[in-house]
């Protein structure tokens, strides 16, 4: 075995020394105790002696380089030893037979180990578990064995099935296309608009009673307008009085529209769809009822045409049926406003020294403060409330 040439700990203050020069060259014979190389510590230059007699055959450190204390900077071959194989092709013949065999053996062992250990590891599973695995496409190597003698048994395969189910239930699922579109638009709305919401509770008693009266006068077979239909009628009237809210704002330009294309928010199992009732201001309540119903049905079925989905100037959204009183509806750009309808609640109120029934309804208006200030928004809302409180005014 060649002898290491070690760097002696000559410095008291540091772990590294400067190798000054080699006094012998590889191939030279050296004698034990003979000066082999010189080093510089922080204090002085010193000679280092050879640890063994023989032939200097390898040096690893160049002159004028830093060397670390206790590191190996060269090797000496003892008398009679053959040169061991270098990493290069030279000196191969010189390698002793023993060493060659040892090397070959160790490479073989290394090669065998991975094959034996990892890839051919036997799976111990009961036939019943295997049958279950085959039928359910399970990888039994993932199962935790609890059977006798460390076997994977049926219950372990069943656990795998359970786990797979849970994982599939909890793992991230890509969202549908519609959802992606909704998501994009919602985010855009937040980025592009300056939404402020105005909420007002208002007395819808008269509107409720008005509708009931209308319904009572209808003959059978006639379309029965819903509360929403009445509300759409009122909104259109209000919007005509406040055209600023029936506008679109794009690229810095504000367009006020004469027609009210009322977008209606419809909840479907695919997500929120907003079909547009065009020229709603021209429609009678009966007509509103007539056109709104199929529009909503198409939305739910997913069979709206592009015409029916674009061109909205104002959006109406109703969460009252789901029990919400007030909320902050999100504007649908390039529109500049959206009105949310909340729940109608029946209250008993004290008025004129008596108790009266009052149908109270929450209204939530969101306007884009880029173009609509608080006051115009509030005024619009006030108009809506007045029309709700005195529905007949809608026809005046």
């Amino acid at each position, binding site marked *: 075995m060649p002898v290491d040439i070690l760097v002696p700990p000559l410095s008291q203050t540091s772990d590294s020394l400067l190798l000054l020069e080699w006094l012998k060259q590889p191939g030279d014979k050296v004698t034990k105790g003979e000066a082999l190389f010189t080093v510089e510590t922080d204090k002085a230059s010193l000679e280092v002696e050879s640890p063994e007699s023989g032939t200097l055959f390898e040096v690893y450190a160049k002159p004028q380089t830093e060397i670390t204390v206790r590191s190996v900077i060269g090797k000496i071959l003892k008398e009679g030893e053959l040169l061991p194989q270098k990493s290069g092709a030279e000196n191969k013949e010189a390698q002793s037979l023993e060493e060659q065999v040892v090397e070959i053996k160790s490479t073989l062992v290394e090669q065998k180990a991975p094959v034996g250990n990892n890839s051919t590891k036997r799976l111990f599973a009961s*036939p*019943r578990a*295997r049958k279950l695995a085959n039928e359910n496409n399970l990888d039994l190597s993932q199962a935790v064995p609890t059977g*006798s*003698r460390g076997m994977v048994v*049926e219950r372990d395969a069943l656990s795998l099935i359970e786990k797979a189910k849970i994982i599939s239930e909890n793992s991230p699922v890509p969202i549908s296309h519609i959802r992606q579109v909704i998501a994009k638009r919602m985010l855009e709305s937040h980025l592009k608009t300056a939404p402020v919401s105005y909420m007002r509770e208002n007395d819808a008693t008269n509107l409720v009673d008005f509708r009931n009266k209308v319904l009572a006068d209808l003959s059978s077979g006639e379309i029965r307008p819903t509360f929403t239909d009445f509300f759409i009628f009122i909104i259109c009237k209000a919007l005509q009085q406040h055209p600023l809210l029936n506008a679109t704002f794009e690229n810095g330009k504000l367009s006020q529209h004469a027609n009210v294309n009322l977008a209606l928010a419809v909840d479907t199992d695919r997500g929120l769809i907003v079909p547009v009732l065009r020229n709603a201001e021209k429609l009678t309540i009966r007509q509103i009822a007539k056109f709104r119903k199929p529009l909503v049905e198409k939305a739910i079925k997913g069979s709206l045409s592009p015409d029916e989905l674009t061109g909205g100037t104002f959006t109406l959204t109703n969460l009252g049926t789901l029990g919400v009183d007030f909320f902050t509806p999100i504007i649908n750009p390039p529109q500049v406003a959206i009105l949310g309808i909340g729940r109608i609640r029946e209250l008993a109120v004290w008025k004129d020294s008596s108790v009266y029934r009052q149908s109270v309804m929450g209204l939530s208006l969101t306007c884009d403060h880029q173009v609509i200030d608080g006051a115009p928004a509030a005024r619009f809302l006030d108009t809506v409330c007045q029309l709700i409180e005195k529905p007949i005014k809608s026809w005046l």
Partner: protein
Amino acid sequence: MAKLSIVEALREAIREEMRRDERVFCIGEDIDIEGGFGGAFTVTLGLSKEFGHDRIIDTPISEIAICGLAVGAAVAGMRPIADVQYGDFLFNMMDQLANEAAKLRYMSGGQVSVPMVMRAPVGSTRRGSQHAQNLEGFFTHVPGLKVVAPSTAYDAKGLLKSAVRDDNPVLFFEHKLLYGSKGQRSEVGALSPVGEVPDEEYLVPIGKGIIRREGKDLTIVATHRMLYESLAASEKLAKKGIEVEVIDPRTLVPLDKDLIFDSVRKTGRLMIVEEDNLTNGWGAEIAALAADEVFEWLDAPIKRLASPDVPPPFAPVLEKEYLQDEAKIISAIESLL
């Protein structure tokens, strides 16, 4: 309905068959000597009063003759019920059983049949190695012999009647500790299960087992005393939420494979508990059959609990070590689950 011990049930079976068919007769040692014990375990006691000694034939100690007489008489048209006092003595008559009774029909090309029954008591009962053997395993291996092993009074009567009416040689194994013999002939440590036996005529078919206890976690197949140990073990395990299905095969040849394998398909685990010695016992046969025919349904290794490969010892503490019991069964089942 009467409550009978196995001894009483067997005696009734013999009596009924002898009344029904005059070709039926009994032959064996000490089976009804005047003033004697009516067979080693009193099964044939009193029968000679009704049928006389021409049909209840006592023999000298000549096991070969007992069997040979039965074989010859059966071929010549009679229906003998032969009796060996202890199962261990079947070895004395082995040639007559295995070379003659089992083969006469086959080697004659079906010319003759041998409608005989050989009744043999088995089971370890502190009498020593040569009076203690369970040896069903020897006979389940002989083509041409049927092997029956009832464990209840109902089955004992029904199966003995079926055996007498069967046209083939039937080895009928009775367990000494299940007889319920009374008085002088009662056994220490006997289980003596007394069972309901209908008054009306009935038969239990040879070749059909029965489920004694339903379960879903493991199937046990056991006979005789081991059946009762298995049932006791199952009761205890039920309290731990382990439900064992216990099958009494009743016949070992021909074996009710369908019953056993349907059960294994359900539970996925099979254990055979027998008093016969472990190596090459009938339990080994069932285990091998299962490993072949219901391999895919197995969820655990097939286990056999049996007496070790030693002759049956005498000392009670050694006999306890030799025999399987409730505790050993419970322990084995828990390690399988």
